[in-house]
């Protein structure tokens, strides 16, 4: 039986694993460095805000909606607005990972935790095997790199304020290793708006029970709280450091914006000095659960060169997805790139065609637009998300942003993509 090896169990890797199961029987192995799936998604939670709603519905209609459905299934808040964002859904960061783990196991994905990949072996352009931290080699036919771009600690030290002890937990589980870099393929390094290297993760997590009763009630009821900051505590420069351009709005600097992700309150800034935070009414006893008051993980240092079918340039059988594949921000974006990479990995094995998605779909357009953007003057500073920034603007300009289910269904149907990823055999279905 042929083997597809997916490296990295974040949202992109999970999506790739599900999509890779299509076609002829094959062994899909998902290698995850830590003991949990979802990677940065463990501290995430925001779905369906702005254009992400369109993309999530496109994925569902194309037959790749299992992860979207799983996130909907553990939602803490549905269809609510927060500054600059509409019809958002928040998933419970507590309940999300177990749900995805069960889903992947049920679908027959061979999940291997503590499976950190440290090296890779190739003959010519063909990848043959990856080496694990326990020094064993694991051979496969097609590989999908979903190692992300955050960390490891050396990068957070060089380009940030040091290790924030985030969900990636590098000190315990070891550093992320870029396979493309190990192959001698040059990764593209993203820049910040302020000219520094990389970007900081855009939010940190407070323990909800450390907030005032009134704030907790607001979060439980509305999913969001907006607390004005005294002028002295407004740090506008922070907006230029964060990776999430969709949240780099003045309102996020002038207020403390919290989102309710279950047990935690998501503080929508990379970090906020604790002493200053506690000067704000309602935050007098605030405690961080992930991240800290002085640092956050540094990301976007490791984008692989790729084509629009997600294959890494210069290789025959290595694909990529998630932040590894572009300056994409968000879970939905990772599900899109992961699904396409997984599909094409399977197609490559089955002797079928690798595909790219049409640009008349939001899912296809963002992948192509991100690659085109690299060549522009400020290309390294741009980030791409359905939920805001330059790409959401583009969605609206091109008429790709839609919230009406019938409109999205019609579009996907017109493109002939209905059930595309679910089809056992694409050619037969087409």
């Amino acid at each position: 039986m042929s083997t597809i090896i997916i490296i990295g169990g974040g949202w992109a890797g999970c999506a790739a694993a599900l999509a890779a199961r299509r076609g002829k029987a094959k062994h899909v192995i998902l290698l995850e460095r830590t003991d949990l799936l979802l990677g940065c998604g463990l501290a995430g939670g925001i779905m369906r805000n702005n254009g992400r709603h369109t993309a999530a519905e496109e994925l569902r209609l194309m037959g790749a909606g299992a992860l979207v459905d799983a996130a909907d299934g553990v939602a803490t808040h549905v269809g609510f607005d927060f500054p600059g964002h509409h019809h958002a859904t928040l998933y419970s960061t507590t309940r999300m990972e177990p749900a995805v783990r069960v889903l992947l196991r049920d679908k027959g994905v061979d999940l291997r935790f503590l499976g950190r990949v440290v090296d890779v072996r190739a003959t010519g352009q063909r990848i043959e095997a990856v080496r694990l931290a326990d020094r064993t080699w694991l051979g496969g036919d097609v590989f999908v790199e979903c190692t992300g771009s955050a960390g490891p600690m050396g990068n957070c030290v060089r380009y940030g304020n040091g290790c924030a002890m985030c969900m990636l937990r590098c000190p315990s589980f070891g550093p992320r290793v870029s396979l493309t870099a190990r192959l001698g393929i040059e990764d593209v390094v993203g820049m910040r708006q302020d000219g520094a290297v990389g970007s900081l993760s855009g939010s940190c997590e407070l323990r909800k029970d450390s907030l005032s009763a009134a704030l907790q009630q607001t979060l439980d009821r509305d999913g969001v709280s907006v607390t004005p900051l005294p002028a002295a505590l407004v740090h506008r420069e922070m907006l230029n450091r964060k990776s999430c351009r969709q949240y780099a709005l003045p309102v996020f600097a002038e207020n403390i914006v919290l989102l309710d992700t279950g047990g935690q309150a998501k503080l929508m800034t990379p970090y906020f000095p604790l002493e200053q935070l506690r000067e704000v009414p309602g935050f007098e006893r605030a405690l961080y659960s992930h991240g800290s008051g002085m640092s956050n993980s540094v990301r976007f240092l490791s984008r692989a060169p790729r084509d629009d079918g997600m294959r890494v340039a210069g290789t025959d059988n290595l694909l990529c997805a998630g932040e590894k594949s572009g300056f994409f921000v968000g879970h939905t974006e990772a599900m899109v790139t992961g699904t396409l990479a997984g599909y094409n990995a399977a197609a490559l094995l089955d002797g079928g065609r690798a595909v790219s998605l049409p640009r008349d779909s939001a899912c296809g357009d963002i992948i192509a637009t991100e690659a085109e953007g690299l060549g522009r003057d400020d290309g390294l500073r741009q980030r791409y998300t359905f939920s805001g920034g330059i790409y959401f603007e583009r969605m609206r300009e091109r008429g790709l942003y839609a919230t009406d289910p019938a409109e999205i269904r019609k579009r996907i149907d017109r493109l002939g993509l209905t059930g595309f990823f679910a089809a056992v055999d694409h050619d037969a279905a087409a």
Partner: protein
Amino acid sequence: MFIDSVSWPELSDFSGLDSLRTVKSGPPTAPGKCIDAGSDFCPCHLAESGECIVCSVLRGESECSCQWTGTCILAQATWVPGLNHKRESLPAPILARIEVGAGTEILHVGAPSRLAAQLTRPGSFVFVRGRDDACFDTPLAVVQSFPGQQRIVLAYTRMGPKTQALSDCSDRLWLRGPYWNGIRGHEIIESVRGRRVLLVLSGMAQVCGPNIARTLLRNGNQVGLVYDTPPFPFVTPYLQDVPTAHFINLNSGRGRAAIRDVLREEVPDCLFSGGGKPQHALLRRTMDELGLTAPMATSRTRRMCCGEGICGACVTELDGTLIRNCKTCLLPEEERAGRDNS
């Protein structure tokens, strides 16, 4: 056609980058870990001179791609510039000398409690010298360590000027430590839990046995012992925690059959060979013949000079990378694969 086809294996149009490299071997992976990584002595002299065994960034590479699970050495180098500890020789009293025959002597030496505690790890050793001159430093394995009594036990055999100086010094020697890389396969010995482990000890390498046995027992393992005789092993008083042992002459045909029987009966999950290369090879061969696949740690046979990766006396080559053997943790098979350039 509703889908744009991307042809394999040719590249589709990619406009983002103009100078793509094809797949080739990346920068060499630093094999093994560093025995001192994360210790009081990290970052060390090597890190300060841009030759850290672990940290690719400190080595001057652009990629942050270390193999180390633990605190970031780059971060440590930022936090403690110039403040990290360096091992220094300190005068230490000789509390007792016990002659055990064949020119071998056991020394009980006074050592600060913290140092003694750090010398309980498998593979622990110190550098000692009987004279002030630094060139007389010689590495000696720690047989046993008593942090509460501020005392360590060492053993040496008179062989040359360094050990002769030790024999000649009266009540005091110079002591530098701690060092831990006296064995190959720390990760085997230190990670095994609740299993059967067999120790085969001979010659001077028997001094590794007590620290290893205590670590194994502490981790809930069943420990079996095989001593190569003659002569009678002098470490037995320090291995009283292991109640029974086999005494076998591994250099005889009968002994080789006996060790085969022991391996067959005990079916160890893990093995430690404290002895010379022929003993390691004999055990490996016998295990192979019996179809046993247990991992084996060994005592080290490489020469040791400064212990800090500086002098180059222990440098070998592995897959095109220079290995400083005194600092680098390799598995025994990796050490065997290396090329000795010295």
